[in-house]
């Protein structure tokens, strides 16, 4: 750590970690409702509310992580202190307050009712203000020295795109098909656009610092990778436009472009492994290294392979709206984004605390727990989804009867989720220990 204001990141990371833990609690509750038909919480916390909280916490903790990561990286890249520490802290408090209000609101039935964008409109405007403060602070910091590194440029571009796309999810539309058309501009162009830019830049920075490889090499590949991500991902939005009232040419455009979406992710894996092999310094932080390499691999399988498996319309017509999507969703979000943040935590925390060495055994253990049990979660939900697609869609069995045949896989899924939760608990204990450690 070279700049005092990088410490801002610490509070962002802490909130992110707490919300991550809470997300898992609501995940376990939501999952239990699949395993048992009898739901004692049906009138207090029905499935829709607990799912809304589970997925909102996911997005919010990831965003806290990205923001913290940005506050950590930008001073080093721009070689100056953050423009305003006060604004950064205000932004943190405002965002946290909006988050708490949203979740309490869901519990009381205050919702806007579109998945992931359940936040009532007034809170969405609050989120826009948070984003504007954040962008302003980051932009002004970069303008102080005007050192336009590729990492900074891609990071800023990604953040601007992230904030800009959110605007398409704010307004109520009379036509449901239109509403979903624009909804995907937020959801898809976030996860297969803006977020890839942000995380690509963060990962490039971390790999460069961890391995000591030349900046030029890292930045060259960053350009190529995010270029291909956007090339395939933007038109690839079309794989969500197969069945929602949009014209049928999307079956071609969406199918072909999204079929190539795994390609840039494969490049990232190769690139990461090469950079690690050609490292110019020893990497004492094995936990951060495990998460970084693991992230590349799990990103490829979760987003790339699992996505490719049902992206072609010939297959998607059977699997669309089944647990196959839930399997892909869990695997991809974890591999691409949760793991990126976990890498960031382990990369930055020791430096923020001024530690040269730290006990890594619990961190490594939690890495293996989370990764292997997420693999089982993806597998069991995937099998449940295949059973569902076959019985319900191919054989024409009704929805609820089909669910009975999926019960076994829901049980495997739920037990695996407890294994994953054990990994998260280990991580939280380790994180707490690191956060309190003194050099």
């Amino acid at each position, binding site marked *: 750590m070279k700049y005092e204001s990088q410490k801002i990141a610490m509070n962002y990371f802490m909130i992110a970690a707490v919300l991550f833990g809470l997300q898992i609690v609501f995940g376990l509750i939501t999952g239990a409702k699949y395993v048992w038909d009898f739901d004692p919480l049906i009138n207090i916390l029905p499935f829709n509310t607990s799912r809304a909280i589970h997925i909102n916490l996911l997005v919010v903790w990831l965003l806290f992580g990205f923001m913290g990561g940005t506050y950590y990286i930008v001073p080093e890249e721009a070689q100056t202190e953050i423009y305003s520490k006060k604004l950064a802290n205000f932004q943190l408090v405002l965002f946290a307050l909006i988050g708490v209000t949203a979740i309490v609101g869901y519990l009381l039935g205050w919702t806007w009712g579109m998945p992931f964008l359940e936040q009532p409109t007034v809170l969405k405007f609050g989120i826009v203000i948070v984003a504007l403060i954040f962008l302003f602070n980051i932009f002004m910091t970069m303008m102080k020295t005007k050192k336009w590194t590729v990492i900074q440029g891609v990071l800023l571009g990604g953040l601007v795109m992230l904030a800009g796309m959110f605007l398409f999810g704010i307004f109520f539309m009379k036509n449901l098909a239109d509403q979903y058309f624009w909804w995907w501009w937020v959801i898809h162009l976030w996860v297969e656009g803006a977020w890839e830019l942000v995380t690509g830049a963060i990962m490039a920075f971390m790999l460069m610092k961890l391995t000591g490889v030349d900046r030029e090499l890292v930045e060259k590949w960053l350009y190529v990778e995010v270029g291909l991500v956007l090339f395939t991902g*933007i038109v690839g939005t079309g794989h969500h436009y197969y069945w929602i009232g949009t014209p049928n040419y999307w079956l071609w455009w969406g199918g072909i472009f999204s079929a190539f979406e795994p390609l840039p992710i494969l490049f990232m894996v190769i690139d990461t492994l090469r950079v690690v092999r050609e490292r110019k310094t020893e990497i004492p932080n094995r936990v951060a290294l495990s998460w970084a390499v693991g992230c590349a691999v799990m990103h490829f399988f979760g987003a790339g392979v699992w996505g490719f498996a049902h992206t072609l319309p010939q297959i998607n017509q059977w699997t669309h709206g089944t647990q196959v999507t839930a399997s892909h969703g869990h695997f991809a979000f974890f591999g691409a984004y949760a793991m990126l943040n976990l890498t960031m935590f382990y990369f930055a925390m020791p430096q923020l605390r001024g530690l040269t060495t730290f006990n890594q055994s619990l961190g490594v253990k939690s890495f293996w727990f989370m990764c292997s049990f997420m693999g089982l979660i993806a597998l069991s939900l995937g099998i449940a989804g295949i059973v569902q697609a076959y019985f319900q869609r191919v054989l024409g069995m009704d929805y609820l009867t089909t*669910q009975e045949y999926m019960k076994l896989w829901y049980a495997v899924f739920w037990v695996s989720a407890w294994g994953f939760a054990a990994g998260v608990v280990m991580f939280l204990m380790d994180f707490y220990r690191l956060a309190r450690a003194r050099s």
Partner: protein
Amino acid sequence: MTLSRAKAIFIWGTVISAAIFLYLSYDSLVQMPKRTQEEKLDSHVVAGKWVWQKYNCNDCHTILGIGGYYAPDVTKVMSTRDGEWVTRFLKDPEKVWPNARKMPNLHLQDQEVADVVAFLTWVNGINTNNWPPKPLVATAVTSGSPGETVYKAQGCSACHLLNGVGGKVGPDLSRVGGKRDKAWIEAQLKNPKSHNPNSIMPSFSRLSQKDIDDLADYLAGLR
């Protein structure tokens, strides 16, 4: 590869893809009013859409295949259920569907229920490129008799098993025709308490005589 070439890949990749995407998006938005029958989108449908959102239905049910996977997709629900059934269901889900996984009673106002039915009826008319696809096997083995259609539309399988499919609240109907004749079944449909005063089966006397006839024919033929 040089850095400037990498930069060119980034810029051109983004620009080309964005240009294609924006053009196709524009064209889609031009075509969608017709594909979604926007002329039928009246104030009831809009009100129903808001009811759908207000109660966060979408985090349990998928619609257009998007949302929670906890409850059935409702995109084409009005092709298999009539408005009367949906109304009855929404007023008291557990009474109509006592078996298995439950939907909470949302205590909807009559107007809200009517609006949701209008909304779902409109959604049913959206051209979804034939999604969800017709089952490959069921279409081949079902008789396609009018009674079978009534059986499905009324959701009899919520309580009754038929060839291994359905609930276990009421008796298995797979071979009911071997035990009961058409007249008995008709009487049962109109007034379930006529055979057993303690029966919890709801009466279907509100169905038209033709529907009752078709349904009784169909069931009496199951041997």
